[in-house]
């Protein structure tokens, strides 16, 4: 077990270093930030001074070495635009993204599991079929398009909900949060729903498939035969058994919610990390782009690592079999 974890850790670190190199090489190659930052009337001397101040006059490998050294110490460079540490900028925006992702996940779970259960228990009924049709639509609609329609209907046409920003926030332990104020909630609702839609469809499908299989099992028949109420059979016997794969998927999807928040945040001008990334790409703010991409890549590598280790604990074939297990 320990050997497996160690090998897996080594692999994760290798991927991380590889990604850092790719991202750095790539981002290094785009545009010339000096052009954007220096006054167009500036002469060559002033330009050279700005280039040197940003460290852009050094050879590429030296820049990468400086970057790696800093990264190991938690310093991912300073934003060209804001002149503050890039990582700090991301951490500052992170609570907004996490709040959005968390609320989206709550919506997806709170709606997805009950709807999926209904669709799985009554697959041939009108309700069951409509739920499935809805989930297929939810799968095929691009997120940004749903966001636009939401804005069109609720902000422009009905005028019920605001279309951008976070609204009033309340500080919880020094971190601003929107969900505690009415105004904040009204700002939070649409983006969270938008972000939740895809995961909601996914959870409906998963729960439905699980429920359809579970109701045919002997333990459910036995529970029914014992004369237990429908509520208890479904709520305890069926739900408990289908929850394991669902919980796994929810865990895995947490990372991807944060990645997809890039789109939702851009539509609803939600001031989180995703919007920061898009803004930074448009302003060629290289250190922030690199810092964001590396943070999210790290997040994914950590999630995947934890999931793999958990799986190997649950299923010894994973750590013993290696490549032998055919898919």
């Amino acid at each position, binding site marked *: 077990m320990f050997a497996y974890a160690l090998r897996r850790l080594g692999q994760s670190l290798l991927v991380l270093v590889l990604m850092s190199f790719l991202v750095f090489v790539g981002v290094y190659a785009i545009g010339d930030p000096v052009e954007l930052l220096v006054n167009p009337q500036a002469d060559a001397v002033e330009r050279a001074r700005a280039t040197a101040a940003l460290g852009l006059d050094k050879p590429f490998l030296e820049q990468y070495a400086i970057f790696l050294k800093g990264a190991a110490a938690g310093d991912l460079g300073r934003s060209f635009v804001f002149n503050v540490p890039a990582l700090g900028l991301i951490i500052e925006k992170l609570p907004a993204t996490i709040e959005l992702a968390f609320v989206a996940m709550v919506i997806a779970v709170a709606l997805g599991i009950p709807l999926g259960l209904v669709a799985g228990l009554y697959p041939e009924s009108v309700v069951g079929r409509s739920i499935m049709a809805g989930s297929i639509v939810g799968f095929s609609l691009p997120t*940004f*398009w749903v966001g636009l329609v939401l804005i*069109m209907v609720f902000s422009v046409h009905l005028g019920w909900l605001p279309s951008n920003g976070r609204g009033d926030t309340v500080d919880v332990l020094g971190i601003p949060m929107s969900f505690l104020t009415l105004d904040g909630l009204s700002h939070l609702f649409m983006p969270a729903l938008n972000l939740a839609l895809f995961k909601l469809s996914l959870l409906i499908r998963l729960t439905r498939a699980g429920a359809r299989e579970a109701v045919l099992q002997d333990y459910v028949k036995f529970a029914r035969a014992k004369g237990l109420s429908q509520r208890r059979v479904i709520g305890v016997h069926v739900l408990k058994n289908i929850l394991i794969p669902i919980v796994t998927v929810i865990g895995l999807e947490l990372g991807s919610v944060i990645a997809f928040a890039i789109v939702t945040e*851009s539509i609803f001008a939600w001031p989180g990390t995703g919007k920061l990334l898009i803004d930074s*790409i448009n302003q060629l703010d290289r250190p922030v782009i690199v810092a964001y991409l590396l943070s999210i*890549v790290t997040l994914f590598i950590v999630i995947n690592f934890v999931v793999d280790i958990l799986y190997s604990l649950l299923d010894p074939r994973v750590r013993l079999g290696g490549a032998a297990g055919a898919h």
Partner: protein
Amino acid sequence: MATDSPWARLRADFAESRLAMAGLGLLVALVGLALLAPLLSPQNPYDLAQLDVLDSKLAPGEKSSTGGTYWLGTDDQGRDMLSGILYGLRISVGVGVASTGLALSIGMVFGLLSAYFGGWLDAIIMRVVDIQLSFPSILIALILLAVLGQGVDKIIVALVAVQWAYYARTVRSAALVERQKEYVEAAKVLALSEARVVFRHLLPNCLPPLIVVATVQVAHAIALEATLSFLGLGLPVTEPSLGLLISNGFQYLLSGKYWISFYPGVALLLTIMAINLVADQLRDVLNPRLRR
């Protein structure tokens, strides 16, 4: 049902679902519109000489200064939305199909090599596939486009990079099953070259699942391109795909000028839905386990 060729049976099976046929009809119509855009559209949306700023942001159905009617309205530059959508559809579908075709070829080769030769080659290829598939596709595309910049070629590269792994995995799993079969054995016994065994014998039998994955992926590619273009990372303004048209209209959405964003969105939606309907039925038709 005893029909002569497998194609005739496929056609008959496919036609069983009316919804799928409707999807196919819609898809053919949309592709036809995209191909014939230069002939059909009332205006060349890229020809600035044909645009009249006085006609900007007209609502659907309003008359132009020269007497024509803008059935779907105009955008901020006085461009006819209908023409813009037809040309945009052309670019969206073109990018989707081109990237899928390229990714399919690349993924197919890697998948076949992986399954046929096994060993360390298989281990390396599949490791890369696993690692790539553990990241969401939008993130990989974003990283690539942040690096590459804008352009039709750049977005195709990004979409290919995102997609190839799906094909590699699909082909590999199909080929692993197929290579155990006797016809592959027979081909080897005949001392045919390895390339011939792989591409002429093994590959054709791995195609059905690949076709299904490819149809679904065209829809994914189109949606992903639209999303990236909407974020301003995909195509340049000179080549507006549907996603870019939607993005362009977004700023006018709040002032109630919905049509600049909405109608390109409808076109995008119809395209994706049509492809998905066709893909769903193809999956059933090509699945040997469901064969009647």
